């Protein structure tokens, strides 16, 4: 089972003894990873059905 984690000290905040260079590399790695998965994330984009849109417009546009 994969454990996911949440620290009480987010990495965006500086830690005592942590060098700026280390934090920059980690941040860069995160940004590169995010860029690499954006196409996959984008493939999950969906739109609501036309029927739902029509119901909303029927309410929103009074004749």
């Amino acid at each position, binding site marked *: 089972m994969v454990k996911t984690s949440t620290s009480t000290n987010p990495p965006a905040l500086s830690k005592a003894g942590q060098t700026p260079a280390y934090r920059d590399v980690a941040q860069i790695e995160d940004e590169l990873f995010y860029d690499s998965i954006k196409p996959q994330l984008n493939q*999950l984009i969906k739109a609501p059905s036309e029927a739902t849109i029509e119901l909303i417009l029927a309410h929103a546009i009074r004749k």
Partner: protein
Amino acid sequence: MLRTPMKLQQFSDQDLVRLYLNGEESVITELLNRHKSKIYTSIYLLVKDQYLAEDIFQDTFVKVVNTLRGGKYNEEGKFLPWVMRIAHNLVIDHFRREKRAPVITSADGTDILNLIQIHEESMEERMLREQTHADLRAMIQLLPDEQKEVLIMRHYADLSFKEIADLTDVSINTALGRMRYALSNLRKLMKVKEVS
């Protein structure tokens, strides 16, 4: 005055809202089309049920319209974050009613994943594509709720970290940290999947 769809696209959200309030109600179509995918995808990834997402999406925009008509819209705020706040609150209301945490499901139906209609796709290719989508969706669902929420609102709703922080009542640093942890955890999950 009738405005062509092409011209409506040049109007800002705020301008369209003002036009709507001034009686040009058809412009709501442009606002809806402009933001529907961002808002619907965000809702869907949070509730993981297509039909429930449709209901919440509809309820969101009914509330939007009712608030606009009631003269309660704050013009100083941006339209999309305001709509996302309404959607977010409705999602939370749903979970409170259901009194359960989001659970991972894998039986959403293939029509949900058919975003890319490849008519000549082989069965093997389709299964692989659908499995990839399902895997990534499952990984997102494995994230702690607060991390999943930030990732969805940042990537799909295109909200700034300040807007996310305001919507979730945390500091910008906390929102940033949650996003970084979300990415870090996604990376771990993907590595595990590659090994397996």
